[in-house]
């Protein structure tokens, strides 16, 4: 009987400590972000850069499926990849999505949008 009492109290304790941690459900889906970014940094080539771009696209798709907000900066980073590839219309589309998702990014996103549009008129 004694043992049982101790056992129960320890179980309760364990349960409480677990409950304390359980409230941190994930706000965002970041997928393989840090892994593919790290690989691209370590060895920047067409393959590693493409993989990281795929990660960004996957984060956007998966966030939609899970009904989560796309993490900060993901639309903007993807837009910048298109910007560098001179695909300026697509770039502008993503900059706009970043600004719509996170109003506090608008100042910077508008700056990037202007740069993309300027490139378009030059070409």
């Amino acid at each position, binding site marked *: 009987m004694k043992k049982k*009492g101790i056992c129960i109290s320890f179980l309760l304790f364990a349960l409480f400590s677990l409950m304390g941690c359980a409230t941190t459900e994930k706000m965002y889906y970041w997928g393989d*972000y840090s892994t593919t970014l790290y690989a691209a940094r370590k060895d920047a080539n067409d393959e590693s850069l493409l993989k990281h771009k795929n990660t960004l696209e996957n984060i956007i798709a998966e966030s939609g499926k899970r009904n989560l907000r796309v*993490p*900060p900066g993901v639309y903007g980073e993807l837009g910048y990849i298109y910007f560098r590839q001179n695909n300026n219309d697509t770039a502008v589309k993503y900059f706009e999505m970043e600004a719509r998702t996170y109003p*506090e*990014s608008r100042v*910077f996103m508008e*700056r990037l949008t202007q740069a993309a549009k300027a490139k378009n008129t030059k070409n």
Partner: protein
Amino acid sequence: MPNRQHYLFIGSICLMVLLLTSCAPKMVTKADKFPLMYEEMPVSILLLPPINETTAADAKEYYSTTLQEPISFSGYYVFPYEVTSEVLKMEGIYDAELLKDLSVTKFREYFGADAVLFTTIKKWDISYIVIASNLTVSIDCELKSTKSEQVLWSYNGTVVIDLSGGGSGGSIAGLIVKSIVTAINTATADYVPYARVANYRAISSVPYGKYHKGYLQDKEQKIVEQRQ
């Protein structure tokens, strides 16, 4: 009438409380430590290129890949570092060292950032002592307002891993440690997981931002008081 079982129950609870409190470091609430965070309520954070005080030349580049995620989970808008670092490079800013004593208000104008985050890599190395070797990653973080130019939050995250394993022979722990040691010897890559833990230790002390459920509700949450 309380019986023996009750005493045992209460006794074991008391013991656990004692165990938890006895070795605890000095604690302070987030609101007492970082009152300016609750006053200014910054929403958007611009990560500046890390300042590297170590001799590991590649630490900076690898470390900077680890910050965006944890800060977003604390509820802040983080500007895409892959983009902002490029823009800063075009402006000739490769390192935040130069910015330490300069005004940061221009980052509000250009990016619309409420605050900038300075990170300093203090340690990123393995030290070999006669009987032991330790891997240490230590990061100082400092969040500075682009409005008031005041330091809103600063904290250190440090991780020390004992790599010696102490003659544990064929045990599983020994094997794991051995594989870590070889991995570290072969590639710098292996610092990154520890950098993530160091980040986590530092960033867990930051008051939650707008996108976190606990926004403005964590004033009484306790954190470890660090000596500056």
